[in-house]
C-alpha cells in the first residue's frame, strides 16, 4: 500500500514515492531506447507567449500537481515514481516533438513544457497521466500564465476566484489526495468474463522515416458544420469521425491489394480502431493520473466492401455497446486482476518488463490499425476564454502503427492532429478530403 493512502500523512506534503497506476504499468515496459508513449496538449493563445512568464507560471503551478513532479525509479518488483525536486525549464518548441523522456538523466521529469509563437504545449509520458488529467494541468498553467502576462479580456494580476473549479485548479490550494488515486483499483469489477484474443488488424504499407522524425498535420474544422453532418446521419461527432477513419483505412487496404497484386484468396484484414474513453465520465474521481480505457471499433474487410453509410451504423452501435458501464468495469477488472496475483507480483521487474513487452508486441499493436482519441470540447472560464484561441491534442509515435489521430475542440473549432512517422500522407489526405467532399471546410497546417 502506498504511503498516500495513510490518513496520518498531511495532504500538503509531497509523497516520497507512489506506485504506478494500473494502466501506467504498461508504458515503462514497452518503451524502447528510441520511443516511448507520449502525448501532447497545446493551447494557442491570442498573443505570442513570453517564455520567462511561462517559466514563472510553471514554477507556481507545479507544486499544486505533486503527482507530476516525479521521476521514474525501478524497484525489485515494480517501477515507482519518486518526487523530483525543482522544476523543468520551459523550452522553445521543436519540429520533432514527443521525443522519449531521458529517464536516467537528472532531474528526470517525465513531462516537458514548450512554447512557440502563440502556442504553449505540454508533453507527457503516458505513465504519468492521461489526457484528461493533463488538460487540467495545462488549463491551470495557462491561467497562471495569463495572470502574469494578461491578454484579451484578462488584466494582469490576481485572477478572480470564480475561474477555479475542478477543471482548472487554484495553484494556491493544497493538493487533494484523491487526485493521486489509482481509480482503476476503486472501480474494477473482478468477476467479469475472461478476455479473448483479437485477430490481427490491417496496417497500411508505408515507408518509415528516421526515428527522430514526427510529421504533424493539423486539420482545423468548424464544429457546427461537422455537427450538422453527424446529425444528418443520427450519430455523434466522434462516431462520425471514427467512421471516416475506418472508411479511409478500408479504402487504403482495397487500393493496396490492387496495387500490390495481393492474391485475392488471401483474406483482407479487419480495420480496428481504438477509441479512448475517459472513464471519469462513468466513474467519478478527481484523479489526475491515468483513468481511461478504450472502445474497439472494428469492421471486417473480409465481409466485402462496405460503403460509408454502411460503416456508420456499425461504428455507432459498436461504440455504444463498448460504453456500457458494467462492461467497462469488467474490462478494468481484467487488467487489474494480474496485478493482484501474488506470483506475478513476486516476479522480478526485469522479467515482468520482458513479459509485458512481449505480450504488447504480440497482441497490443498488431490487433489495432490505429488510435483516434477525442479529448472533446475544452472549456475555459469566461474570464479567460478570449485569451485562448484554440486547444490541440496529439498522440506520440507508436511502434508499429504509423499514424495516430487525436483531436480537441474549443470555441467552435475542432483541431484534428495526425502524427505520423512515415513518408506517405494517404491517411491524412483520405481522412480530410472525405470531410471536404461531405461539405465540411478544412484548413490544414503542418510541419511537413
Amino acid at each position, binding site marked *: 500500500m502506498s504511503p498516500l493512502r495513510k490518513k496520518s500523512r498531511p495532504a500538503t506534503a509531497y509523497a516520497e514515492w507512489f506506485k504506478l497506476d494500473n494502466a501506467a504499468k504498461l508504458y515503462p515496459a514497452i518503451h524502447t531506447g528510441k520511443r516511448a508513449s507520449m502525448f501532447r496538449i497545446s493551447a494557442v493563445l491570442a498573443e505570442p507567449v513570453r517564455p520567462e512568464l511561462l517559466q514563472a507560471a510553471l514554477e507556481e503551478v507545479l507544486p499544486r500537481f505533486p503527482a507530476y513532479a516525479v521521476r521514474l525509479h525501478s524497484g525489485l518488483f515494480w517501477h515507482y515514481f519518486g518526487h523530483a525536486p525543482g522544476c523543468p525549464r520551459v523550452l522553445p518548441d521543436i519540429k520533432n516533438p514527443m521525443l522519449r523522456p531521458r529517464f536516467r538523466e537528472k532531474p528526470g521529469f517525465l513531462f516537458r513544457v514548450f512554447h512557440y509563437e502563440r502556442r504553449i504545449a505540454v508533453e507527457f509520458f503516458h505513465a504519468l497521466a492521461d489526457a484528461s488529467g493533463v488538460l487540467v494541468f495545462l488549463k491551470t498553467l495557462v491561467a497562471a500564465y495569463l495572470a502574469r502576462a494578461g491578454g484579451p479580456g484578462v488584466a494582469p494580476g490576481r485572477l478572480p476566484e470564480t475561474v477555479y473549479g475542478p477543471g482548472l485548479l487554484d495553484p494556491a490550494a493544497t493538493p487533494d489526495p484523491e487526485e493521486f488515486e489509482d481509480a482503476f483499483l476503486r472501480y474494477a469489477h473482478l468477476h467479469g468474463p475472461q478476455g479473448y484474443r483479437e485477430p490481427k488488424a490491417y496496417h497500411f504499407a508505408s515507408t518509415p522515416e528516421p526515428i*527522430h522524425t514526427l510529421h504533424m498535420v493539423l486539420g482545423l474544422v468548424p464544429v457546427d458544420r461537422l455537427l450538422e453532418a453527424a446529425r444528418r446521419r443520427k450519430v455523434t461527432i466522434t462516431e462520425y469521425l471514427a467512421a471516416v477513419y475506418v472508411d479511409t483505412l478500408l479504402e487504403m487496404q482495397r487500393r493496396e491489394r490492387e496495387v500490390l497484386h495481393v492474391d485475392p484468396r488471401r483474406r483482407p484484414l479487419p480495420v480496428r480502431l481504438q477509441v479512448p474513453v475517459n472513464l471519469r465520465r462513468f466513474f467519478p474521481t478527481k484523479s489526475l493520473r491515468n483513468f481511461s480505457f478504450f472502445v474497439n471499433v472494428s469492421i471486417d474487410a473480409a465481409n466485402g466492401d462496405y460503403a460509408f453509410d454502411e460503416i456508420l451504423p456499425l461504428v455507432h452501435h459498436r461504440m455504444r455497446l463498448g460504453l456500457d458501464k458494467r462492461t467497462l468495469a469488467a474490462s478494468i477488472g481484467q487488467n487489474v486482476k494480474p496485478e493482484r496475483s501474488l506470483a506475478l507480483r513476486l516476479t522480478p521487474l526485469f522479467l515482468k518488463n520482458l513479459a509485458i513487452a512481449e505480450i504488447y508486441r504480440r497482441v497490443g499493436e498488431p490487433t489495432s490499425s490505429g488510435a483516434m482519441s477525442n479529448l472533446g470540447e475544452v472549456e475555459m472560464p469566461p474570464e479567460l476564454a478570449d485569451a485562448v484561441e484554440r486547444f490541440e491534442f496529439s498522440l506520440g509515435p507508436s511502434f508499429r502503427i504509423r499514424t495516430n489521430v487525436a483531436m480537441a475542440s474549443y470555441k467552435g473549432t475542432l483541431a484534428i492532429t495526425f502524427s505520423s512517422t512515415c513518408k506517405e500522407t494517404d491517411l*491524412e*489526405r483520405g481522412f*480530410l478530403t472525405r470531410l471536404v467532399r461531405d461539405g465540411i471546410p478544412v*484548413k*490544414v497546417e*503542418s*510541419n511537413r
Partner: protein
Amino acid sequence: MSYCVNCGVELDRTAACCALCGTEVCNPSQPVDMTAPKPFPEEMQPPPPNNRPLIAGLLAALLSLPVLVCLVTNLVFGGGAWSVYPIGGIVLFWVLTAGPLLSRKPRPVPLIALDAFAVLVYLFVIAALGGQGLIVGLHWYLRLALPIVVVVAAATLFPVAYLRRYRADGLVTSAILFVDAGLALVGIELALSFFAGHPFQLSWSWIVLISCLAMSVALLIIDRSPHLLAELRRRLHV
C-alpha cells in the same frame, strides 16, 4: 487564403505546397507569405548522441591490455609465436562484438558474412602457424575448416536474409529453419566425408534431413489449414 486545387483544403498562408499531396500553391492574388512565422517550429532537436561506438572503443581499450601482456611475455620469454593464438582470439572476439555496436542500423546479413570471414582468417592463421607445417595445416583448413564455416555461415545467412525480406509467421519460420538445419548438417557431413577420404558417403545426415523435411512439410500443411490449426490450438492450449 489559398486552397489546394487537388485536395480542396484551405492552406496556411506560409505554405508553399499542400501538406497532404505536395501540390504547389499557385495563387496570383495571394502569393505565399515567406515572412510570417510558420504554424510549427522549424528547429529539429538532434537525436541524443550515439554512445555505442564509445562502448566499442572502450572494449577495444580493455581488450588491448591482455593483448599487450601476451605480446610482452612472448617477446621476453620466447617460446615460439604462441601469443598469436590468444591475440588472434581476442581480436576475433572484438570483431564479433564490435560489429553490431558500430553498425547504425541492424544489418545482420553483412555482419554474419563479416563474422564468418573473421573466423576463417583466424583459423587460417592457426593452420599456417600450426606445428605440423603449412602443408598439413592447409590440408585440414581447406578440407574441413573452410567448408564447415562456409556451410554454417550460409545456413545462418539464408533464413536471416529470407525472413528479413519476406515476413513469415511462426509456423512458416519453423519450417524454413528445419529445412535449413537439415541441409546444413548434410553439408557438414559432406565436408567430413571429403576430409576422411571417402567423398559423398553420407551415413547419418540424410536421416536428419528427411526428418527435418517431413517436419517442415507437416508445419506448412498445418499453416495452410486453419481448421487443423484451430484444432491443435484447442487441444494443446496452455
